[in-house]
């Protein structure tokens, strides 16, 4: 925790682990006999259970979206800028739920968990997942929390794709979907970046064909390199220029002598890669990038996004950032066009920002205003839960 707890922070948060004992059929044809999800919740569920918000995290995100874990925690959760008392996703108004996705490496069942059949870590044998598997696992989570219908499902990047899948898979269980810096499917260039990252991991001799936990090693260099590649694509040229320019962190170009030179951007990327590789599972990284690559919103709807969205019953807010080249505004505008043709309520904002794809995580006055305006609309929403869904009694 920083020296003084910021007043608009949700404070210290304790994650919860929820166990599921019913087998979960997966899109790949296999099933998880049992699994667990680690979640964090912020705010209070109201009496008619109509104020629940599901936050879907992105590729390397996890359940810790807001607040701090301990007094010594230097950094708050990954979306602390946007979730908290008085913030755009206002925890005084909403009950916010953020799970770590299945396949993750922060406590939810994933490749680094123990496979009950072998009593060893799953590793590469963990079933390949698709966004719909996450949605199905989260629908069961909603059942356990006693939530029939989310007031909103919100996500950025991969989380935004997942939020759209929610709208199609459980149209009666979500009133609003907020999709930030996402796309209906990845472009070839995007898949190429992911493949480069996966190759970086697999070429690390410590990867051991994915059995590194069993072999008691960690492919840190490969994972760090994968993260460096990803990180470059999440920033814009302008932002890297503004942040680092050609500033040196070591060495000199002075003629007549030679001291090896290091640009600031080099040490920054290495630091980012190293920190990441200490806290992330390489198999999870491979799994998550594949979920991204495989995602295609309209595949099961004759590749027609309008047909796909015609199954949705919720309203949509779509947000993009103009300097984001990994998930460009054009991709968001395709979502908007399909929603309009599918006769769905939709609003769209293209936010000016130099921060590239990462802008969705960061502070931006206009972004926060748009999000806050849309969220305040939810409170006036005349549509209260109207569809009855058979859910077991709340267990929490």
């Amino acid at each position, binding site marked *: 925790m920083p020296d003084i707890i910021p007043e608009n922070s949700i404070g210290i948060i304790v994650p919860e682990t929820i166990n599921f004992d019913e087998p979960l059929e997966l899109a790949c044809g296999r099933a998880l006999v049992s699994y667990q999800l680690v979640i964090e919740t912020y705010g209070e569920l109201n009496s008619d259970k109509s104020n629940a918000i599901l936050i879907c995290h992105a590729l390397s995100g996890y359940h810790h979206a807001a607040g701090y874990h301990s007094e010594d925690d230097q950094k708050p959760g990954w979306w602390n800028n946007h979730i908290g008392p008085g913030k755009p996703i206002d925890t005084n108004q909403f009950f916010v739920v953020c799970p770590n996705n299945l396949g993750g490496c922060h406590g939810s069942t994933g490749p680094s968990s123990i496979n009950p059949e072998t009593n060893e870590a799953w590793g590469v044998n963990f079933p390949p997942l698709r966004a719909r598997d996450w949605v199905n696992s989260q629908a069961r989570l909603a059942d356990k929390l006693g939530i029939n219908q989310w007031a909103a499902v919100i996500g950025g990047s991969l989380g935004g794709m997942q939020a759209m899948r929610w709208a199609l898979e459980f149209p009666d269980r979500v009133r609003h979907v907020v999709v930030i810096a996402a796309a209906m499917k990845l472009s070839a260039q995007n898949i190429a970046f992911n493949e480069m990252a996966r190759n970086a991991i697999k070429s690390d001799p410590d990867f051991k064909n994915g059995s590194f936990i069993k072999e008691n090693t960690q492919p840190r260099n490969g994972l760090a390199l994968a993260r460096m590649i990803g990180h470059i694509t999440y920033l814009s040229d302008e932002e890297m220029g503004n942040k680092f320019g050609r500033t040196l962190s070591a060495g000199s170009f002075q003629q007549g002598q030679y001291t090896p030179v290091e640009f600031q951007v080099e040490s920054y990327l290495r630091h980012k890669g190293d920190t990441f590789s200490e806290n992330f599972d390489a198999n999870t990284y491979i799994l998550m990038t594949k979920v991204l690559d495989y995602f295609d919103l309209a595949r099961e709807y004759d590749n027609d996004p309008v047909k796909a969205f015609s199954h949705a019953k919720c309203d949509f*807010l779509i947000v993009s950032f103009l300097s984001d080249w990994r998930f460009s505004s054009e991709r968001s*505008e395709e979502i*908007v*066009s399909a929603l*309009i*043709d599918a*006769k769905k*309520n*939709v*609003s*769209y*904002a*293209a936010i000016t920002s130099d921060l590239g794809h990462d802008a969705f995580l960061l502070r931006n006055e*206009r972004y926060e*205003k*748009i999000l806050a*305006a*849309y969220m*305040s*609309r939810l409170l*006036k929403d005349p549509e209260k839960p109207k569809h009855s869904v058979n859910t077991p009694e709340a267990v929490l």
Partner: protein
Amino acid sequence: MSLRTDLEFIQTWIAPNSRILDLACGDGTLLQSLKASSQIEGYGLEIDPEKITEAISNNVNVIEADLDSGLSQFSDNSFDTVVMTEALQAMRNPDLVLDEMLRIGENCIVTFPNFGNWQTRIFLATQGQMPVTKKLSYQWYNTPNIHFCTVSDFEALCADKGIHIDNKKFTADRFPGAWLKTLWPNLFSDTAIYMLSKHIGPNND
């Protein structure tokens, strides 16, 4: 809710339950009132960040878009009516915008300030400078209104393009009830409201 005079007229021309696209929708006032009065299903396009936030707060479907970069994201005849109020004169290519409106909508409604109004004529004649009036309060160098036209100019463009004028109304704040604006709109009206369609059938007009 009190609406601008041109918006009030528009309301009477919009069929209930129709699908409306409002170009340069501002804070969504028109769509909001049409939703209440005529149960329309509407979307607005807007470029001003503040207005977009207000429209979202007003529970209006608002899409951030620059009308000057075209409307190719909308398919042919995907709306019943495409509306543009007080913005045609700010477009880089008003004629192409009209074409697009009639491609996307079965019909369209445009309103614009009539530059042939007696006040602007007197201003230009007596002062020898570009008119600055209460309604058109910008100077020539900072005005967003880069393509002013008069009622006659507009009807000439419609004739050139074979656009059918289904209906028209004129408002004059100085003479709200006066017959002058109807008899001689190019001189007396300050806002012109047109309903247009691309179909020129034998029974039309």
